[in-house]
């Protein structure tokens, strides 16, 4: 049986009279966007914490939006992504004095999805590298303590705090990742594997999953054509959009020049018995004339044709 628990991470742009805009432009565009994802067979929907108020505005409540998802073949909202990519004097995970404010913000987000059965509370464990460096063991410990606190709080509300590591974040090399997970309590802090971000940072996502299988609660399946060899990760003012020699980091699965071995990862997932959600994410897919709609079709085609085959092979091997 092909894997059914596929969710889509809420990045999208569509044509409007005011130029290409996110579908939260208004309710009619949001409906059409959900229908397109439904036609591709996605069952889960992950979104950003800052979209929750917009969903309330358009559908009356986040719960009502989830009903609309369910009317369109989705199971539920599967994950909420909360992040502080840029350190300010109010919020910076490596600065203990800001931890109370961050925990309060996370509490507010958790309350906004109270009553739904959202599984993953996905977080960026750190801000941009250049605002944290030098990255010492001490700072990694401080960040670990923060997410232990947040993880305990979200678990009480049925959501697992799970860490998603950007290639330009402060925790990026294999040593830093291992240290961070040693400092964190496995009951409260989990691992969210982004295939492209780890590959760009020179870390093998497949090996990361093998080593942290028990703490892994989700994936971002997206591809990249480039490993960061020019220290883009630590160049101000912004590595993600303004890296001098790389105008686009992220691509959908199935494009020529992709570096991530998705079939191998799929076989590893099946063999490991993992039964959680797998999430497709496209970020800035419109660069160079691309389109989110087409990129998502090509990715889902790859899932239903290439990954389904890898899954079948793995299931045969495992004698399931």
């Amino acid at each position: 049986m092909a894997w059914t628990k596929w969710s889509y991470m809420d990045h999208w742009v569509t044509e409007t009279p005011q130029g290409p805009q996110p579908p939260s432009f208004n309710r009619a565009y949001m409906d059409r966007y959900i229908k397109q994802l439904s036609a591709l067979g996605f069952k889960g929907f992950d979104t950003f914490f800052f979209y929750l108020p917009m969903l309330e505005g358009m559908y009356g409540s986040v719960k009502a939006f989830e009903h609309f998802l369910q009317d369109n073949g989705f199971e539920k909202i599967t994950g909420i992504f909360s992040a502080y990519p840029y350190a300010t004097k109010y919020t910076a995970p490596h600065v203990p004095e800001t931890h109370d404010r961050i925990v309060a913000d996370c509490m507010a987000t958790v309350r906004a999805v109270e009553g739904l059965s959202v599984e993953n509370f996905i977080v960026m464990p750190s801000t941009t590298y250049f605002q944290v460096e030098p990255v010492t063991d001490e700072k990694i410990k401080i960040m670990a303590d923060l997410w232990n606190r947040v993880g305990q709080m979200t678990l009480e509300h049925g959501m697992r705090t799970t860490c998603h590591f950007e290639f330009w974040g402060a925790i990026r090399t294999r040593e830093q990742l291992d240290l961070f997970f040693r400092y964190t309590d496995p009951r409260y802090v989990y691992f969210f594997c982004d295939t492209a971000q780890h590959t760009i940072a020179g870390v093998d996502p497949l090996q990361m999953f093998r080593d942290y299988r028990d703490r892994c609660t989700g994936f971002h399946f997206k591809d990249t054509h480039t490993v960061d060899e020019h220290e883009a990760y630590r160049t101000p003012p912004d590595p993600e959009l303004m890296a001098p020699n790389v105008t686009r980091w992220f691509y959908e699965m199935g494009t020529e020049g992709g570096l991530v071995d998705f079939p191998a990862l799929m076989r590893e997932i099946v063999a490991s018995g993992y039964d959680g959600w797998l999430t497709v994410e496209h970020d800035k897919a419109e660069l160079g004339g691309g389109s989110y709609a087409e990129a998502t079709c090509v990715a889902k085609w790859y899932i239903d044709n290439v990954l389904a085959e890898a899954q079948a092979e793995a299931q045969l091997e495992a004698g399931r």
Partner: protein
Amino acid sequence: MRDTLRWAYALNQWNIRMDVFVRHEDQRRALKTLSALGFDHIELAAGTGRWDNLGRPEVIEINHGSPDGFLAFLRSCSVNGVSSMFWDPGQPVEEEGWAFRSTRNRADHAAIVESAKPFVDFLAAIGAEQLVARPAGSAWMQPPLGRDDIAAIGDVWNSVGKVAAAAGVGLALHYDCLSAVHTADELRRLLDTTDPELVGLALDTAELTIGGIDPVAFYEERHGRVTHVHLKDTRYADTGEEYRMPGAETTMLRGGAGRRIERWFFELGTEGGLVDVKAFVGALRRHGYPGWVVVESDHGGNPAELAMLNSWYLQHELSVARP
């Protein structure tokens, strides 16, 4: 007939989403487009975060080293300077811990004056003339204005005006069709409660028209207080209560509900445009309007195309010669 009008263009037209118009080469292409069209000054718009790198003084500094470094960046594209910067103190920003503030709330006034300072200092450093500010939050979010509300709003803007004047920067309050200061009388009362030496009016031809105020008539009436102009067109006027729809930023201005009009602002001379641009510019010339005229069209289909059509209108319909 002497004509001293100075023309600038609003750069926000290119900044349509969070993750676009961030790379310097994209910004250079926009600046060169404007320069090729005869505009040698631009208006900036406040924003937040590392990707809004023309919207916060501290982020501009990280990108260009210093105010002078930023000016050098503009001049590399033959744009000579910045005329003004638009700022809405009621818009929560990351750099202020996402604090929500209202000019009606006296308890917020000190923080509002404080939050204006980085902008005033930056504008002074780059030789820009006006800080263009939204006087009050959206009407649908709060009860109608009472007398002491307008007094409170006037007070905070006098304070900000004082800070700006001390740095040699002007302050102009920008009317918009969703703001709580909505009717012509409310706008008059706000002008009357503010010190003409410290606070001017930024008259936006499209916003006034949508709000049901004739921009030519209002300019004739209060031309002494108009220190800044936004020149753009619109094809629609509020039927009367649309600005009170909940979430009007989306339900009205992005066609989410009601008449489902998904675009209100247009380039000058657009078909079915309601603004009598020629009459308005004629009035500016008659009264020797001293300030900047910032041309814009807000977000439409293709930013470069809209700028080119605006420039054509200036050259052909308003006889403004390209340098």
